[in-house]
């Protein structure tokens, strides 16, 4: 289990729709506050990188001291809901972590992707809006304990 991990899902227009601190240790507060800033700043790289590769898992794109930003980009997809459809652009999963467990992170991302798709299938969930489901939150934290 990683000591620090901050997980965030970024939707279209770079709006975060889910965020969670999934690390165990209470780190120094100053650093904790910067996590989101680091993740946000790393979006600059993700934007460039996402279009150069077809891989979903972009591995570590940014480093900040011991912290590494790993990114997973979903393929863009189109949802059909009754008559009209919504075009969903790429969703970016970003994880700020200090562990070196590459495989674990990849598995974590894949499982969370699956969870996210399940959330999308919920007819009451408006794609692109904030994920407020507590079930989703619990599952993500469980996955983090399992893999990170």
């Amino acid at each position: 289990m990683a000591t620090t991990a901050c997980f965030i899902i970024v939707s279209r227009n770079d709006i975060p729709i889910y965020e969670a601190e999934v690390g165990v240790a209470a780190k120094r507060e100053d650093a904790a506050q910067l996590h989101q800033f680091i993740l946000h700043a790393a979006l600059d790289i993700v934007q460039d990188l996402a279009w150069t590769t077809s891989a979903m898992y972009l591995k570590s794109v940014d480093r900040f001291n011991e912290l590494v930003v790993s990114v997973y980009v979903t393929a863009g997809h189109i949802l059909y809901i009754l008559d009209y459809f919504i075009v969903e652009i790429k969703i970016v999963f970003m994880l700020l972590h200090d562990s070196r467990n590459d495989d674990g992170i990849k598995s974590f991302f894949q499982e969370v992707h699956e969870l996210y798709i399940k959330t999308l299938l919920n007819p009451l969930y408006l794609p692109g809006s904030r994920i407020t489901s507590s079930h989703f939150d619990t599952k993500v934290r469980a996955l983090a304990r399992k893999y990170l």
Partner: protein
Amino acid sequence: MEEYPEELRTPPVTLASLVGCPELHPLISTHFLSEQPPINTLALPDFSKISLFNKKRDPDSTATSPSPALGILKRDWLLKHRTKLPSVLAALFPSHHLAADPAHWLQLCSHLDSIKTVIRARNIKFAVVVVVQTNADEISEDRMIALRKRAEVDAKHVVVLNPNDTSELKQTLHRLASTISELAGAFYREEGRRIKQRIEKKNVSSVELIVRYCFKVAVYAEFRSDWTEALKFYEEAYHTLREIVGVTTRLPAVQRLVEIKSISEQLHFKISTLLLHSGKVAEAVMWFRQHRNAYKRLVGAPEGIFLHWEWMSRQFLVFGELLETSSKIIQGISPIILATSSKPLTEWEYYSAYYYQLAAHYLSEKRSALELTISMSETSNEIDNVADSVVPSVYVGQFARLLEQGDKVDMLPLTDEEYIRYAVSEGKRFQDSLEIIVLLKKAYESFNSMKIQRMSSFCGFQMAREYFAEGDISNAKQIFDSIASLYRKEGWVTLLWDVLGYLRECSRKNGTIKDFVEYSLEMAALPISSDTGVRRDTGPAGPANLRQREIVHNEVFELVSGASGLATIEHPSNLKITGDESLQLEVDLVSPLRLVMLASVSFHEQTIKPGASTLITVSLLSHLPLTVEIDRLEIQFNQSKCNFFIANAKKPQSVEVSNGIQHHRTERAPSLSLESNKWLRLTYDIQSDQSGKFECLSVIAKIGSHLTICCRADSPASLDSLPLWTLEGCVQTVPIKDPILVLSGQKSTQVEEPDPQVDLHLGASGPALVGEIFLVPVTLVSRGHDVYKGELKINLVDIKGGGLFSPRDSEPYATDSHHVQLLGISGAEREDDSQLYSDKIKKIQQSFGLISVPILKNGDSWSCKLEIKWHRPKPIMLYVSLGYTTYSNELIEQTVHVHKHLQIEGQTAIVLNHHYLMPFRRDPLLLSKNKQASESDQSESLPLNQKNVLIVSAKNCTELPLRLKSISIEVEDDAEKTCSIQHGGEELSNPSLIVPGEEFKKVFAVSSSMNISKLKLGTVCLRWRRDLGIEEQSAYTSTLSWVVTKQKLPDVNVELPPLIVSFECPPYAIVGDPFTYYIRISNQTQLLQEVKYSLADAQSFVLSGYHNDTVHVLPKSEHILSYKLVPLVSGMQQLPKFSMTSVRYSAAYQPSNSSNSVFVFPSKPQFKASVSTNSRVESVSNEYIL
């Protein structure tokens, strides 16, 4: 980078020394500097100064001595080689010293001896320059050899220099320079090899010395521009140094680490510089990463941590600066390096800004560590006097205490405590925050210029925080504001929360109450519901959760309600609203305060009648966490008469506000409390008297005695444009319950015009005829309204949409370019009194007209006539619209419009036709006609010298009777007279009436005698007008103008027929009564014509004569065939069919049918009067001709 000594920062330059002939030194040294590579010169004025280079007792030289080294690198070693110790000594001797006097020669020899003793100890290379004054000065070969022997130099190291010979001087100097640099290269190579041997022998006493030797070898290699070797040995030194970190115990722990770090810093600097200069950016970046990783954890003793952070910060700063300077030289880092590297570098590592940002980060670490250290060592006061006497010692990275005892200066080693005290006092002198701000600013601007927005706002955030801590509020606020807008746009709520927290504090410190209220409200309204799990209480914003939002909310509303101001104990604030000061916040469509209050206004109807009332729903939404009680709402419209207030019934005092101003309607609502995330809906009726757009502009909410929030009104339909994140968590997101209005409700409605009470009548009769001026009477009758400022607009529009203007015809004839044209407007019947007025506006264009209508009182009428002319038959739509106001008052602009339209057909009145006739029973053989039969060309041919008949017929195609005045053929003036036309210009004595469908014909005789092929006949000109019926007889008709229709007759061909066949038979025949039928074939040519002919049998006749034969017709004569015929049947009978072939022209020929029949009476007719009989027969025969 600037803090490094000069000799470290620049690549080493060879140093040479000159001695003797001081007047030549400037010349030589300037030339050497301009050489490539340059050579520095150390000029000694005379030979006595040679002793400067004498070797001192150097502990360094005794390498094998067992005493351990006191330090790793000597501080001044590099400088010594750069400025003091030359690699080559060049001695300059005037030539006459060699030549003439033995005394001179002796002196020269003694100089040489002294030089040799000095340089031998130092291994310095030696060159001799002989200075000659003129070219004539010949130096004897013997002397030169003697000199070489004495000086023990090679021949090529003796240079003859003639400073007066300008042509040769440059070349000589160049030769001298190359000699010197060759010798210098040899010197550095030998020195390097000497030291390298010491390393290889491995008999070095301590590891420190290995580092020193490697460094020296590398520097010597650099002196001779051998970059690869230099790099190799620098790296060697670096690695060796890294190994001794845990090993050496020579110095106290803290100082040991400091020494090692500063040496590794120098080595790293050299390595990075070399790598970057050779363009290996990726390698340099990798090297830096290794360097950072190697030393990252060497923090050292806890009280000296700040030294580590400072060192780290400096590493990043220096590398950033190196990268920046080199990236100016090396254009564009290819991203391919990124991909190929096995351990991929992130993109950031190629940007210098990245290093600046991290340098700032470590500097702030240093600051906090330093503060910690200071706070721990607060009690000791003797820091200063110790610090005074501490100076850098002779070794790099070491410090010593300077002990002065009279003249004697002594260096004493320091203990760690003393050193730390010294370092702390040094550290205090620097203002770290300023340095941090400078670094972050560099990074911020650099990222910004590369359009890396998020990273730059991260830097900006840190920088602004630094400014804030420093108390530079205005700078901090400016930067916070700019980054807040990015976070707002992207919806990173928690980041925005932090930034807004700072901004709020900034405005609190500045005392700008409006900003404070705005930021506080925005914070309170941010959609943060629960903690994300982190305890984050660093910024002034506090933790981002619902409770904190409520705290902020309460704080701001206490302030604006004037409860107490904010003068609590922890914030002795200057924020206070006093007296009748009021605070108005504007919420427009892009304001972030839309979260605080959103006003959606919807009219229930899209159009309303003036004076009729409709419903309007005002819906308000707030995302503030707590319920807000509104005192009064004001709804503002673009028609300010309609503005109204909604007062909160629970707050009775707030109704009467501004008593001076016109009284507006005030409604009372039982409750105006705006709950969190819940629409407050209010529906009232409203009416407007003024036509046009009626729009709700804004909703102004008054909360407490000081705060008003002015929300720009929004249509419910446009709410979709809000970013998604601002609406989440809302229980109901529809501002109106009515499902239709939610989708289509608009904040504006259209108030219709009052119904017009003026009749507009277009009286047009029947279709219009092409060519005539068609009059459309327009009549205005006022029935209830007075007409002021009336304007009549006339428009002609093509029904089929093709346009009335055809570009094909748009030639100089402006009048013809329009198919239908509005010519003018005539006969305004009250011309006498309105002449002046109606002239004021009168605009007539081809298809558009605008005229003004005089003032009409109720019951009056006015009329005019539109003159329209058709050029082509085309249906058009005539639109006439009247716009007027009912009041003479200028101020009220309430126009009423009446529209009328009428479709008018345009018809062609008369269609002209024409055809030609040959003389009766006389057929010329027209060769061209035969030919053309196959080619189906329709152009007509006429025989020459024959009298032809032209019949022009005019047919009335309309449904109206027409009067025809004349048909004439007008020959064009300029055309030569090619033919004669009889009855050309005659007029009918009385205009004849043509009823619809009737055809009027006129016969012209045309003959041509001229031998031309084309005959231009001219133009048929027809004058006509409508029949007026009963009025036709009145005198009025004579004044009417006639419409002229013209049609050009096509040209006809004329040719000479070679043969003409004419038939002769009596005008009529009687059954059983034989008659003779002559066929006359006349040859018009000068040639003999052979003609085959045949005559077919006819049923109605008995015939005698040849059926077939071939005859020869002599030139210019005729041949007559005669047949006897007895008619058998009465009535119109076809004569036996005659056909003939001209052999010469091989042209078959058949006379036309019409000329080939005769009427057979059953018995001899009885005619009463011979005159009438004749005319009767004539007319009968005429009829058949036609």
